[in-house]
Protein backbone atom coordinates (compact mmCIF):
# COMPACT_ATOMS: atom_id res chain seq x y z
CA UNK A 1 0.00 0.00 0.00
CA UNK A 2 1.36 3.42 -0.89
CA UNK A 3 2.05 6.05 1.72
CA UNK A 4 -1.07 8.11 1.18
CA UNK A 5 -1.94 9.14 4.71
CA UNK A 6 -3.66 12.45 4.08
CA UNK A 7 -3.22 13.53 7.66
CA UNK A 8 0.51 13.64 7.04
CA UNK A 9 2.19 16.94 7.93
CA UNK A 10 4.10 16.83 4.67
CA UNK A 11 0.85 17.22 2.77
CA UNK A 12 -0.33 20.14 4.80
CA UNK A 13 -1.74 23.24 3.10
CA UNK A 14 -0.55 23.82 -0.41
CA UNK A 15 2.43 21.53 -0.14
CA UNK A 16 1.50 19.32 -3.07
CA UNK A 17 1.40 22.34 -5.33
CA UNK A 18 4.74 23.71 -4.25
CA UNK A 19 3.55 27.14 -3.21
CA UNK A 20 4.72 28.96 -0.11
CA UNK A 21 1.46 30.33 1.25
CA UNK A 22 -1.29 27.77 1.78
CA UNK A 23 -4.85 27.68 3.02
CA UNK A 24 -5.08 27.36 6.81
CA UNK A 25 -5.91 23.97 8.37
CA UNK A 26 -8.17 25.15 11.17
CA UNK A 27 -11.53 23.39 10.74
CA UNK A 28 -13.05 20.47 12.66
CA UNK A 29 -15.97 18.05 11.97
CA UNK A 30 -18.52 20.53 13.35
CA UNK A 31 -17.40 23.10 10.80
CA UNK A 32 -17.73 20.50 8.03
CA UNK A 33 -21.27 19.72 9.25
CA UNK A 34 -22.03 23.46 9.39
CA UNK A 35 -20.68 23.99 5.89
CA UNK A 36 -22.78 21.15 4.43
CA UNK A 37 -25.99 21.70 6.39
CA UNK A 38 -25.55 25.47 6.34
CA UNK A 39 -25.58 25.55 2.55
CA UNK A 40 -28.52 23.18 2.28
CA UNK A 41 -30.83 24.05 5.16
CA UNK A 42 -32.16 27.01 3.22
CA UNK A 43 -33.62 24.38 0.87
CA UNK A 44 -36.15 23.63 3.63
CA UNK A 45 -36.92 27.33 4.05
CA UNK A 46 -37.54 28.05 0.35
CA UNK A 47 -37.44 26.42 -3.07
CA UNK A 48 -38.39 22.80 -2.19
CA UNK A 49 -42.04 23.82 -2.46
CA UNK A 50 -41.76 24.17 -6.25
CA UNK A 51 -41.87 20.33 -6.08
CA UNK A 52 -45.40 20.66 -4.68
CA UNK A 53 -46.28 22.85 -7.66
CA UNK A 54 -44.92 20.28 -10.11
CA UNK A 55 -46.78 17.29 -8.72
CA UNK A 56 -48.82 18.05 -5.59
CA UNK A 57 -48.06 17.60 -1.90
CA UNK A 58 -47.75 13.80 -1.86
CA UNK A 59 -45.53 13.91 -4.94
CA UNK A 60 -43.26 16.35 -3.11
CA UNK A 61 -42.99 13.92 -0.18
CA UNK A 62 -42.12 11.00 -2.46
CA UNK A 63 -39.59 13.24 -4.23
CA UNK A 64 -38.19 14.27 -0.85
CA UNK A 65 -37.44 10.65 0.09
CA UNK A 66 -36.15 9.57 -3.31
CA UNK A 67 -33.95 12.65 -3.45
CA UNK A 68 -32.86 11.65 0.06
CA UNK A 69 -31.74 8.28 -1.32
CA UNK A 70 -29.94 10.06 -4.16
CA UNK A 71 -28.05 12.29 -1.72
CA UNK A 72 -27.29 9.43 0.66
CA UNK A 73 -25.53 7.76 -2.27
CA UNK A 74 -23.78 11.07 -3.02
CA UNK A 75 -22.64 11.41 0.60
CA UNK A 76 -21.39 7.81 0.80
CA UNK A 77 -19.47 8.02 -2.47
CA UNK A 78 -18.15 11.47 -1.72
CA UNK A 79 -17.00 10.49 1.74
CA UNK A 80 -14.85 7.67 0.41
CA UNK A 81 -13.25 9.57 -2.44
CA UNK A 82 -12.72 12.82 -0.61
CA UNK A 83 -11.21 11.08 2.40
CA UNK A 84 -8.30 10.31 0.09
CA UNK A 85 -8.27 13.57 -1.91
CA UNK A 86 -7.73 16.20 0.73
CA UNK A 87 -7.35 19.24 -1.50
CA UNK A 88 -9.37 22.36 -2.25
CA UNK A 89 -11.75 22.01 -5.15
CA UNK A 90 -13.55 18.91 -3.86
CA UNK A 91 -15.06 16.94 -6.73
CA UNK A 92 -13.05 19.02 -9.20
CA UNK A 93 -9.82 17.69 -7.70
CA UNK A 94 -11.27 14.18 -7.60
CA UNK A 95 -12.14 14.35 -11.30
CA UNK A 96 -8.68 15.65 -12.17
CA UNK A 97 -7.00 12.67 -10.54
CA UNK A 98 -9.50 9.97 -11.45
CA UNK A 99 -11.22 10.78 -14.78
CA UNK A 100 -9.22 13.45 -16.59
CA UNK A 101 -8.69 17.17 -17.12
CA UNK A 102 -11.75 17.94 -19.29
CA UNK A 103 -14.06 16.21 -16.83
CA UNK A 104 -12.38 18.15 -14.03
CA UNK A 105 -12.90 21.43 -15.84
CA UNK A 106 -16.58 20.66 -16.29
CA UNK A 107 -16.97 19.58 -12.66
CA UNK A 108 -15.27 22.79 -11.54
CA UNK A 109 -17.81 24.77 -13.53
CA UNK A 110 -20.72 22.67 -12.17
CA UNK A 111 -19.57 23.49 -8.65
CA UNK A 112 -19.03 27.16 -9.30
CA UNK A 113 -22.37 27.68 -11.02
CA UNK A 114 -24.42 25.47 -8.70
CA UNK A 115 -23.16 27.40 -5.70
CA UNK A 116 -23.19 30.85 -7.27
CA UNK A 117 -26.79 30.39 -8.44
CA UNK A 118 -27.75 29.06 -5.01
CA UNK A 119 -26.12 32.12 -3.48
CA UNK A 120 -28.19 34.32 -5.82
CA UNK A 121 -31.38 32.46 -4.85
CA UNK A 122 -30.55 33.00 -1.18
CA UNK A 123 -30.06 36.70 -1.68
CA UNK A 124 -33.40 36.95 -3.52
CA UNK A 125 -35.12 35.21 -0.61
CA UNK A 126 -33.44 37.44 1.98
CA UNK A 127 -34.63 40.51 0.03
CA UNK A 128 -38.16 39.11 -0.15
CA UNK A 129 -38.19 38.36 3.59
CA UNK A 130 -37.20 41.90 4.45
CA UNK A 131 -39.95 43.12 2.12
CA UNK A 132 -42.56 40.96 3.92
CA UNK A 133 -41.34 42.10 7.32
CA UNK A 134 -41.63 45.71 6.20
CA UNK A 135 -45.28 45.22 5.19
CA UNK A 136 -46.06 43.29 8.40
CA UNK A 137 -44.60 46.08 10.51
CA UNK A 138 -46.73 48.73 8.83
CA UNK A 139 -44.54 50.14 6.04
CA UNK A 140 -47.04 51.51 3.51
CA UNK A 141 -44.81 51.91 0.46
CA UNK A 142 -43.33 49.29 -1.91
CA UNK A 143 -39.93 48.43 -0.39
CA UNK A 144 -37.16 48.08 -2.96
CA UNK A 145 -35.57 44.66 -2.33
CA UNK A 146 -32.48 45.25 -4.47
CA UNK A 147 -30.33 47.13 -1.93
CA UNK A 148 -30.81 44.27 0.55
CA UNK A 149 -29.90 41.67 -2.08
CA UNK A 150 -26.71 43.57 -2.86
CA UNK A 151 -25.93 44.06 0.84
CA UNK A 152 -26.28 40.33 1.60
CA UNK A 153 -23.90 39.29 -1.17
CA UNK A 154 -21.35 42.02 -0.47
CA UNK A 155 -21.31 41.47 3.31
CA UNK A 156 -20.86 37.71 3.04
CA UNK A 157 -18.17 38.07 0.38
CA UNK A 158 -16.32 40.40 2.73
CA UNK A 159 -16.65 37.85 5.55
CA UNK A 160 -15.25 35.14 3.28
CA UNK A 161 -12.44 37.43 2.20
CA UNK A 162 -11.43 37.91 5.84
CA UNK A 163 -10.98 34.26 6.77
CA UNK A 164 -12.46 30.78 6.68
CA UNK A 165 -12.56 30.07 10.44
CA UNK A 166 -14.64 33.14 11.27
CA UNK A 167 -16.85 32.46 8.23
CA UNK A 168 -17.68 28.88 9.14
CA UNK A 169 -17.96 29.56 12.87
CA UNK A 170 -20.55 32.19 11.94
CA UNK A 171 -22.24 29.51 9.80
CA UNK A 172 -22.21 26.99 12.63
CA UNK A 173 -24.11 29.32 14.96
CA UNK A 174 -26.74 30.57 12.52
CA UNK A 175 -27.29 27.10 11.00
CA UNK A 176 -27.94 25.66 14.46
CA UNK A 177 -30.50 28.40 15.17
CA UNK A 178 -32.25 27.84 11.82
CA UNK A 179 -32.43 24.08 12.46
CA UNK A 180 -33.81 24.56 15.97
CA UNK A 181 -36.46 26.92 14.53
CA UNK A 182 -37.79 24.07 12.32
CA UNK A 183 -37.94 21.73 15.32
CA UNK A 184 -39.79 24.33 17.41
CA UNK A 185 -42.31 24.95 14.61
CA UNK A 186 -42.92 21.22 14.28
CA UNK A 187 -43.38 20.72 18.02
CA UNK A 188 -45.65 23.76 18.31
CA UNK A 189 -47.95 23.07 15.37
CA UNK A 190 -48.14 19.26 15.27
CA UNK A 191 -49.96 18.88 18.57
CA UNK A 192 -46.98 17.57 20.56
CA UNK A 193 -46.77 20.81 22.52
CA UNK A 194 -50.20 22.41 22.83
CA UNK A 195 -52.93 22.31 20.22
CA UNK A 196 -52.12 21.07 16.75
CA UNK A 197 -53.15 22.89 13.57
CA UNK A 198 -52.28 20.16 11.07
CA UNK A 199 -55.06 19.22 8.62
CA UNK A 200 -53.36 17.16 5.91
CA UNK A 201 -56.44 15.15 4.92
CA UNK A 202 -58.71 18.18 4.63
CA UNK A 203 -56.21 20.26 2.66
CA UNK A 204 -55.36 17.50 0.21
CA UNK A 205 -58.91 16.26 -0.29
CA UNK A 206 -59.52 15.98 -4.03
CA UNK A 207 -55.92 17.05 -4.81
CA UNK A 208 -53.92 13.99 -3.74
CA UNK A 209 -52.01 13.65 -7.02
CA UNK A 210 -53.23 16.52 -9.22
CA UNK A 211 -51.01 15.51 -12.17
CA UNK A 212 -51.17 11.76 -11.58
CA UNK A 213 -47.96 9.72 -11.40
CA UNK A 214 -46.16 11.82 -14.00
CA UNK A 215 -46.37 14.62 -11.46
CA UNK A 216 -44.43 12.45 -9.00
CA UNK A 217 -41.65 12.10 -11.57
CA UNK A 218 -41.78 15.82 -12.34
CA UNK A 219 -41.48 16.68 -8.64
CA UNK A 220 -38.04 15.04 -8.50
CA UNK A 221 -36.74 18.18 -10.25
CA UNK A 222 -37.19 20.37 -7.19
CA UNK A 223 -36.91 17.42 -4.81
CA UNK A 224 -33.16 17.89 -5.16
CA UNK A 225 -33.50 21.30 -3.58
CA UNK A 226 -34.11 19.73 -0.16
CA UNK A 227 -30.47 18.62 -0.10
CA UNK A 228 -28.58 20.40 -2.88
CA UNK A 229 -25.14 21.44 -1.71
CA UNK A 230 -24.37 18.77 0.93
CA UNK A 231 -21.54 17.61 -1.31
CA UNK A 232 -19.94 21.02 -0.69
CA UNK A 233 -18.33 19.66 2.46
CA UNK A 234 -15.47 18.40 0.31
CA UNK A 235 -14.50 21.94 -0.62
CA UNK A 236 -13.06 22.35 2.87
CA UNK A 237 -10.74 19.36 2.42
CA UNK A 238 -7.60 21.48 2.37
CA UNK A 239 -8.64 23.46 5.43
CA UNK A 240 -9.69 20.73 7.91
CA UNK A 241 -7.29 19.54 10.58
CA UNK A 242 -8.07 15.85 10.05
CA UNK A 243 -9.59 15.24 6.61
CA UNK A 244 -9.79 11.45 6.90
CA UNK A 245 -11.99 11.75 10.01
CA UNK A 246 -13.71 15.11 9.73
CA UNK A 247 -14.93 14.91 6.13
CA UNK A 248 -16.83 11.57 6.29
CA UNK A 249 -18.13 12.34 9.78
CA UNK A 250 -19.30 15.86 8.91
CA UNK A 251 -20.83 14.82 5.56
CA UNK A 252 -22.74 11.78 6.82
CA UNK A 253 -23.97 13.60 9.94
CA UNK A 254 -25.07 16.38 7.60
CA UNK A 255 -27.19 14.17 5.33
CA UNK A 256 -28.88 12.59 8.38
CA UNK A 257 -29.72 16.04 9.73
CA UNK A 258 -31.17 17.07 6.39
CA UNK A 259 -33.31 13.95 5.98
CA UNK A 260 -34.96 14.78 9.30
CA UNK A 261 -35.31 18.48 8.53
CA UNK A 262 -36.75 17.86 5.04
CA UNK A 263 -39.42 15.45 6.28
CA UNK A 264 -40.44 17.72 9.15
CA UNK A 265 -40.60 20.67 6.77
CA UNK A 266 -42.90 18.85 4.37
CA UNK A 267 -45.09 17.72 7.25
CA UNK A 268 -45.68 21.13 8.81
CA UNK A 269 -46.06 23.09 5.57
CA UNK A 270 -48.35 20.68 3.71
CA UNK A 271 -50.52 20.34 6.82
CA UNK A 272 -51.20 24.07 6.99
CA UNK A 273 -50.87 25.61 3.50
CA UNK A 274 -53.10 24.76 0.50
CA UNK A 275 -51.01 22.94 -2.11
CA UNK A 276 -51.52 25.44 -4.96
CA UNK A 277 -50.29 28.31 -2.77
CA UNK A 278 -47.49 26.22 -1.32
CA UNK A 279 -46.39 25.05 -4.76
CA UNK A 280 -46.03 28.48 -6.32
CA UNK A 281 -42.77 29.85 -4.98
CA UNK A 282 -42.98 33.03 -7.06
CA UNK A 283 -46.58 34.26 -6.69
CA UNK A 284 -47.56 32.14 -3.68
CA UNK A 285 -45.34 30.92 -0.89
CA UNK A 286 -41.77 32.19 -1.35
CA UNK A 287 -40.85 31.16 2.22
CA UNK A 288 -43.18 28.28 3.21
CA UNK A 289 -41.97 27.72 6.79
CA UNK A 290 -42.41 31.41 7.47
CA UNK A 291 -45.89 31.34 5.89
CA UNK A 292 -46.78 28.33 8.05
CA UNK A 293 -45.72 30.28 11.13
CA UNK A 294 -47.90 33.20 9.98
CA UNK A 295 -50.95 30.90 10.03
CA UNK A 296 -50.07 29.46 13.44
CA UNK A 297 -51.44 32.50 15.23
CA UNK A 298 -48.29 32.84 17.31
CA UNK A 299 -46.23 36.01 16.99
CA UNK A 300 -43.29 34.28 18.65
CA UNK A 301 -43.29 31.61 15.93
CA UNK A 302 -43.56 34.27 13.21
CA UNK A 303 -40.48 36.01 14.58
CA UNK A 304 -38.58 32.77 15.16
CA UNK A 305 -39.23 31.47 11.64
CA UNK A 306 -38.55 34.90 10.17
CA UNK A 307 -35.17 34.90 11.88
CA UNK A 308 -34.68 31.23 10.94
CA UNK A 309 -35.37 32.00 7.27
CA UNK A 310 -32.99 34.95 7.29
CA UNK A 311 -30.27 32.94 9.05
CA UNK A 312 -30.74 29.98 6.71
CA UNK A 313 -30.36 32.19 3.64
CA UNK A 314 -27.30 33.89 5.11
CA UNK A 315 -25.69 30.59 6.13
CA UNK A 316 -26.33 29.12 2.72
CA UNK A 317 -25.08 32.12 0.78
CA UNK A 318 -22.06 32.21 3.06
CA UNK A 319 -21.21 28.57 2.42
CA UNK A 320 -21.86 28.98 -1.29
CA UNK A 321 -19.37 31.83 -1.56
CA UNK A 322 -16.88 29.67 0.32
CA UNK A 323 -17.36 26.67 -2.00
CA UNK A 324 -17.69 28.43 -5.35
CA UNK A 325 -14.55 30.45 -4.70
CA UNK A 326 -12.58 27.30 -3.72
CA UNK A 327 -13.59 25.57 -6.95
CA UNK A 328 -12.72 28.64 -9.05
CA UNK A 329 -9.46 29.08 -7.13
CA UNK A 330 -8.48 25.45 -7.65
CA UNK A 331 -9.04 25.74 -11.40
CA UNK A 332 -6.97 28.93 -11.50
CA UNK A 333 -4.16 27.25 -9.57
CA UNK A 334 -4.03 24.49 -12.18
CA UNK A 335 -4.22 27.04 -15.06
CA UNK A 336 -7.54 25.60 -16.21
CA UNK A 337 -8.53 29.23 -15.78
CA UNK A 338 -6.11 32.18 -15.81
CA UNK A 339 -3.57 31.62 -13.05
CA UNK A 340 -4.40 35.01 -11.54
CA UNK A 341 -7.35 33.36 -9.76
CA UNK A 342 -5.08 30.88 -8.02
CA UNK A 343 -3.68 33.41 -5.52
CA UNK A 344 -4.02 33.13 -1.74
CA UNK A 345 -4.30 36.30 0.35
CA UNK A 346 -0.95 36.82 2.13
CA UNK A 347 -2.59 37.79 5.41
CA UNK A 348 -6.03 36.13 5.54
CA UNK A 349 -4.97 32.99 3.63
CA UNK A 350 -8.16 32.92 1.57
CA UNK A 351 -8.67 32.68 -2.23
CA UNK A 352 -9.53 36.36 -2.28
CA UNK A 353 -9.40 37.04 -6.02
CA UNK A 354 -11.85 34.24 -6.75
CA UNK A 355 -14.15 35.49 -3.99
CA UNK A 356 -14.19 39.01 -5.44
CA UNK A 357 -14.55 37.88 -9.05
CA UNK A 358 -17.70 35.84 -8.36
CA UNK A 359 -19.51 38.69 -6.56
CA UNK A 360 -20.75 40.51 -9.70
CA UNK A 361 -21.78 37.20 -11.31
CA UNK A 362 -23.99 36.41 -8.31
CA UNK A 363 -25.39 39.93 -8.36
CA UNK A 364 -26.32 39.75 -12.04
CA UNK A 365 -28.30 36.56 -11.47
CA UNK A 366 -29.86 37.71 -8.19
CA UNK A 367 -31.02 41.01 -9.66
CA UNK A 368 -31.87 39.87 -13.18
CA UNK A 369 -33.59 36.46 -13.13
CA UNK A 370 -36.70 34.97 -11.46
CA UNK A 371 -36.22 32.65 -8.50
CA UNK A 372 -37.37 29.42 -10.17
CA UNK A 373 -35.02 29.95 -13.14
CA UNK A 374 -32.07 30.64 -10.84
CA UNK A 375 -32.90 27.52 -8.81
CA UNK A 376 -33.25 25.43 -11.97
CA UNK A 377 -29.85 26.63 -13.19
CA UNK A 378 -28.36 25.61 -9.85
CA UNK A 379 -30.14 22.25 -9.79
CA UNK A 380 -29.01 21.43 -13.34
CA UNK A 381 -25.38 22.11 -12.51
CA UNK A 382 -25.78 19.95 -9.40
CA UNK A 383 -27.47 17.18 -11.38
CA UNK A 384 -24.66 17.06 -13.93
CA UNK A 385 -22.25 16.79 -11.03
CA UNK A 386 -24.17 13.93 -9.40
CA UNK A 387 -24.18 12.08 -12.73
CA UNK A 388 -20.39 12.37 -12.75
CA UNK A 389 -20.06 10.88 -9.23
CA UNK A 390 -20.99 7.25 -10.01
CA UNK A 391 -18.66 7.28 -13.00
CA UNK A 392 -16.00 8.74 -10.75
CA UNK A 393 -16.26 6.16 -7.97
CA UNK A 394 -16.44 3.21 -10.37
CA UNK A 395 -13.25 4.41 -12.07
CA UNK A 396 -11.67 5.15 -8.68
CA UNK A 397 -12.22 1.59 -7.44
CA UNK A 398 -11.04 0.21 -10.79
CA UNK A 399 -7.85 2.27 -11.01
CA UNK A 400 -7.01 2.10 -7.30
CA UNK A 401 -8.61 -0.98 -5.70
CA UNK A 402 -9.08 -1.01 -1.93
CA UNK A 403 -5.73 -2.60 -1.19
CA UNK A 404 -3.69 -0.04 -3.15
CA UNK A 405 -4.28 3.22 -1.28
CA UNK A 406 -5.44 4.03 2.21
CA UNK A 407 -8.97 5.42 2.54
CA UNK A 408 -10.32 7.31 5.53
CA UNK A 409 -13.75 5.75 4.78
CA UNK A 410 -14.86 2.89 2.52
CA UNK A 411 -18.47 3.07 1.40
CA UNK A 412 -20.36 -0.27 1.57
CA UNK A 413 -22.18 -2.27 -1.13
CA UNK A 414 -20.14 -0.89 -4.04
CA UNK A 415 -21.24 -0.57 -6.88
CA UNK A 416 -24.88 -0.53 -5.72
CA UNK A 417 -24.89 3.11 -4.50
CA UNK A 418 -23.28 4.20 -7.77
CA UNK A 419 -25.89 2.39 -9.88
CA UNK A 420 -28.79 3.69 -7.76
CA UNK A 421 -27.40 7.20 -8.04
CA UNK A 422 -27.10 6.88 -11.82
CA UNK A 423 -30.72 5.69 -12.13
CA UNK A 424 -32.04 8.49 -9.92
CA UNK A 425 -30.07 11.05 -11.93
CA UNK A 426 -31.70 9.70 -15.12
CA UNK A 427 -35.14 10.10 -13.55
CA UNK A 428 -34.32 13.64 -12.46
CA UNK A 429 -33.15 14.61 -15.95
CA UNK A 430 -36.59 13.51 -17.17
CA UNK A 431 -38.21 15.48 -14.34
CA UNK A 432 -36.37 18.65 -15.40
CA UNK A 433 -37.34 17.95 -19.01
CA UNK A 434 -41.00 18.12 -17.91
CA UNK A 435 -41.54 21.86 -17.82
CA UNK A 436 -37.96 23.12 -18.09
CA UNK A 437 -36.68 21.27 -21.18
CA UNK A 438 -35.35 24.39 -22.89
CA UNK A 439 -33.29 25.31 -19.85
CA UNK A 440 -31.89 21.80 -19.80
CA UNK A 441 -30.86 21.89 -23.45
CA UNK A 442 -29.42 25.43 -23.10
CA UNK A 443 -27.37 24.30 -20.13
CA UNK A 444 -26.01 21.16 -21.80
CA UNK A 445 -25.30 23.25 -24.93
CA UNK A 446 -23.30 25.63 -22.76
CA UNK A 447 -21.23 22.80 -21.31
CA UNK A 448 -20.60 21.27 -24.74
CA UNK A 449 -19.32 24.60 -26.09
CA UNK A 450 -17.05 25.26 -23.10
CA UNK A 451 -15.77 21.67 -23.25
CA UNK A 452 -14.72 22.12 -26.87
CA UNK A 453 -13.17 25.49 -25.97
CA UNK A 454 -11.21 23.89 -23.12
CA UNK A 455 -9.98 20.89 -25.08
CA UNK A 456 -8.97 22.72 -28.23
CA UNK A 457 -7.79 26.06 -26.74
CA UNK A 458 -7.47 26.43 -23.00
CA UNK A 459 -5.74 23.13 -22.21
CA UNK A 460 -2.57 24.21 -24.05
CA UNK A 461 -1.75 26.46 -21.08
CA UNK A 462 -1.83 23.56 -18.64
CA UNK A 463 1.28 21.56 -17.76
CA UNK A 464 0.53 17.85 -17.99
CA UNK A 465 2.17 15.77 -15.26
CA UNK A 466 2.15 18.47 -12.60
CA UNK A 467 -1.65 18.39 -12.43
CA UNK A 468 -1.45 15.06 -10.64
CA UNK A 469 -0.61 16.17 -7.11
CA UNK A 470 -1.74 13.22 -4.97
CA UNK A 471 0.98 10.84 -3.73
CA UNK A 472 -0.82 7.83 -5.20
CA UNK A 473 0.69 4.95 -7.12
CA UNK A 474 0.22 4.70 -10.86
CA UNK A 475 -3.41 3.83 -11.71
CA UNK A 476 -4.06 0.28 -12.86
CA UNK A 477 -4.54 -0.12 -16.59
CA UNK A 478 -2.18 2.71 -17.63
Amino acid at each position, binding site marked *: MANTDITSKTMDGMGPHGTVVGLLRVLGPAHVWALGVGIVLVGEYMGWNFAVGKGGAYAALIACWFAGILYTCVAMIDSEVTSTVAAAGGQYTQAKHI*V*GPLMAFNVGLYLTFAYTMLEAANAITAGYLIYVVSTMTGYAGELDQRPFIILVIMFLAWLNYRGVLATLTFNLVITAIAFVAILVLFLSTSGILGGGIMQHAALMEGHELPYGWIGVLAAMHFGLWYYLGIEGTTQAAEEVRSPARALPFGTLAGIMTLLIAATLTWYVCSGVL*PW*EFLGDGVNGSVAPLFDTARLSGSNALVWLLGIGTLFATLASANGCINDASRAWFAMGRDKYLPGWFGAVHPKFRTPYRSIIFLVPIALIFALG*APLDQVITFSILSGLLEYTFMPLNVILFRKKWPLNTIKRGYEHPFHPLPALVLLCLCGITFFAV*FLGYGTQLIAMIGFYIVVSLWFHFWRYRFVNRGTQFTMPWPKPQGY
Partner: protein
Amino acid sequence: MARYKAPVQSKASQIFDVIFLVVLTLGALFVPLKMGLSGAAKTVAEPVANPTWESLGQTPAQAAQYEALGYDPASAHDLILARFDYSFTAGALIAMIVVIVAYYVLMLKFSETEYREVIAEKFDGK
Protein backbone atom coordinates in the same frame (compact mmCIF):
# COMPACT_ATOMS: atom_id res chain seq x y z
CA MET B 1 9.78 12.43 -25.58
CA ALA B 2 10.24 15.84 -23.95
CA ARG B 3 7.95 16.90 -21.14
CA TYR B 4 5.23 19.25 -22.30
CA LYS B 5 5.95 22.84 -21.32
CA ALA B 6 2.89 25.05 -21.40
CA PRO B 7 3.30 28.43 -23.11
CA VAL B 8 2.90 31.58 -21.04
CA GLN B 9 -0.45 33.18 -21.74
CA SER B 10 -0.54 36.93 -22.29
CA LYS B 11 -2.63 39.10 -19.97
CA ALA B 12 -4.93 40.14 -22.83
CA SER B 13 -5.54 36.53 -23.73
CA GLN B 14 -6.31 35.67 -20.08
CA ILE B 15 -8.82 38.51 -19.87
CA PHE B 16 -10.41 37.40 -23.13
CA ASP B 17 -10.78 33.84 -21.80
CA VAL B 18 -12.56 35.03 -18.67
CA ILE B 19 -14.89 37.32 -20.64
CA PHE B 20 -15.69 34.45 -23.00
CA LEU B 21 -16.72 32.21 -20.11
CA VAL B 22 -18.78 34.89 -18.41
CA VAL B 23 -20.63 35.79 -21.62
CA LEU B 24 -21.42 32.13 -22.28
CA THR B 25 -22.67 31.67 -18.72
CA LEU B 26 -24.95 34.67 -18.86
CA GLY B 27 -26.13 33.60 -22.30
CA ALA B 28 -27.08 30.11 -21.11
CA LEU B 29 -29.53 31.57 -18.59
CA PHE B 30 -30.64 34.84 -20.09
CA VAL B 31 -31.02 33.96 -23.79
CA PRO B 32 -33.81 31.37 -23.19
CA LEU B 33 -35.31 33.77 -20.65
CA LYS B 34 -35.34 36.77 -23.01
CA MET B 35 -36.63 34.67 -25.90
CA GLY B 36 -39.49 33.37 -23.78
CA LEU B 37 -38.23 29.79 -24.12
CA SER B 38 -37.36 29.15 -20.52
CA GLY B 39 -40.38 26.93 -20.03
CA ALA B 40 -42.18 26.32 -16.78
CA ALA B 41 -44.99 28.70 -17.70
CA LYS B 42 -48.09 27.51 -15.90
CA THR B 43 -51.31 28.43 -17.67
CA VAL B 44 -54.98 28.53 -16.76
CA ALA B 45 -56.63 26.25 -19.30
CA GLU B 46 -60.25 26.93 -18.30
CA PRO B 47 -60.78 30.26 -16.51
CA VAL B 48 -63.82 30.52 -14.23
CA ALA B 49 -66.00 33.61 -14.53
CA ASN B 50 -67.13 35.12 -11.19
CA PRO B 51 -65.22 32.52 -9.19
CA THR B 52 -66.34 31.17 -5.83
CA TRP B 53 -64.39 28.78 -3.60
CA GLU B 54 -66.72 25.99 -4.72
CA SER B 55 -66.29 26.72 -8.43
CA LEU B 56 -62.52 26.76 -7.87
CA GLY B 57 -62.77 23.25 -6.39
CA GLN B 58 -61.91 24.26 -2.84
CA THR B 59 -63.33 22.60 0.27
CA PRO B 60 -64.28 24.77 3.28
CA ALA B 61 -61.00 23.85 5.00
CA GLN B 62 -58.97 24.88 1.95
CA ALA B 63 -60.97 28.08 1.50
CA ALA B 64 -60.44 28.99 5.15
CA GLN B 65 -56.67 28.75 4.77
CA TYR B 66 -56.73 30.93 1.64
CA GLU B 67 -58.76 33.53 3.49
CA ALA B 68 -56.32 33.40 6.40
CA LEU B 69 -53.56 34.13 3.89
CA GLY B 70 -55.44 37.18 2.64
CA TYR B 71 -56.93 35.78 -0.59
CA ASP B 72 -60.47 35.90 -1.92
CA PRO B 73 -61.71 33.70 -4.81
CA ALA B 74 -60.90 36.36 -7.41
CA SER B 75 -57.32 36.96 -6.26
CA ALA B 76 -56.69 33.23 -5.79
CA HIS B 77 -58.16 32.30 -9.20
CA ASP B 78 -54.92 32.08 -11.21
CA LEU B 79 -52.93 30.64 -8.31
CA ILE B 80 -55.40 27.75 -7.91
CA LEU B 81 -56.16 26.96 -11.54
CA ALA B 82 -52.76 27.40 -13.22
CA ARG B 83 -51.20 24.08 -14.28
CA PHE B 84 -48.08 22.84 -16.04
CA ASP B 85 -48.47 21.17 -19.40
CA TYR B 86 -46.48 17.92 -19.26
CA SER B 87 -47.32 16.78 -22.76
CA PHE B 88 -44.24 16.10 -24.88
CA THR B 89 -43.29 14.40 -28.09
CA ALA B 90 -41.14 11.29 -28.37
CA GLY B 91 -38.85 13.28 -30.67
CA ALA B 92 -38.19 15.91 -28.01
CA LEU B 93 -37.46 13.24 -25.40
CA ILE B 94 -35.11 11.37 -27.73
CA ALA B 95 -33.36 14.64 -28.62
CA MET B 96 -32.77 15.35 -24.93
CA ILE B 97 -31.39 11.86 -24.28
CA VAL B 98 -29.08 12.09 -27.31
CA VAL B 99 -27.76 15.51 -26.24
CA ILE B 100 -27.04 14.37 -22.67
CA VAL B 101 -25.42 11.07 -23.70
CA ALA B 102 -23.38 12.79 -26.44
CA TYR B 103 -22.16 15.33 -23.92
CA TYR B 104 -20.90 12.70 -21.48
CA VAL B 105 -19.40 10.54 -24.24
CA LEU B 106 -17.57 13.56 -25.68
CA MET B 107 -16.29 14.55 -22.26
CA LEU B 108 -15.15 11.07 -21.23
CA LYS B 109 -13.42 10.48 -24.56
CA PHE B 110 -11.49 13.77 -24.54
CA SER B 111 -10.74 13.38 -20.84
CA GLU B 112 -9.27 9.91 -21.38
CA THR B 113 -6.93 11.24 -24.09
CA GLU B 114 -5.76 14.05 -21.83
CA TYR B 115 -5.51 11.76 -18.79
CA ARG B 116 -3.20 9.30 -20.55
CA GLU B 117 -0.79 12.18 -21.26
CA VAL B 118 -0.89 13.22 -17.60
CA ILE B 119 -0.21 9.70 -16.32
CA ALA B 120 2.54 9.09 -18.87
CA GLU B 121 4.35 12.28 -17.91
CA LYS B 122 3.82 11.84 -14.16
CA PHE B 123 4.76 8.18 -13.82
CA ASP B 124 6.80 7.32 -16.91
CA GLY B 125 8.59 10.63 -17.31
CA LYS B 126 7.39 10.91 -20.90
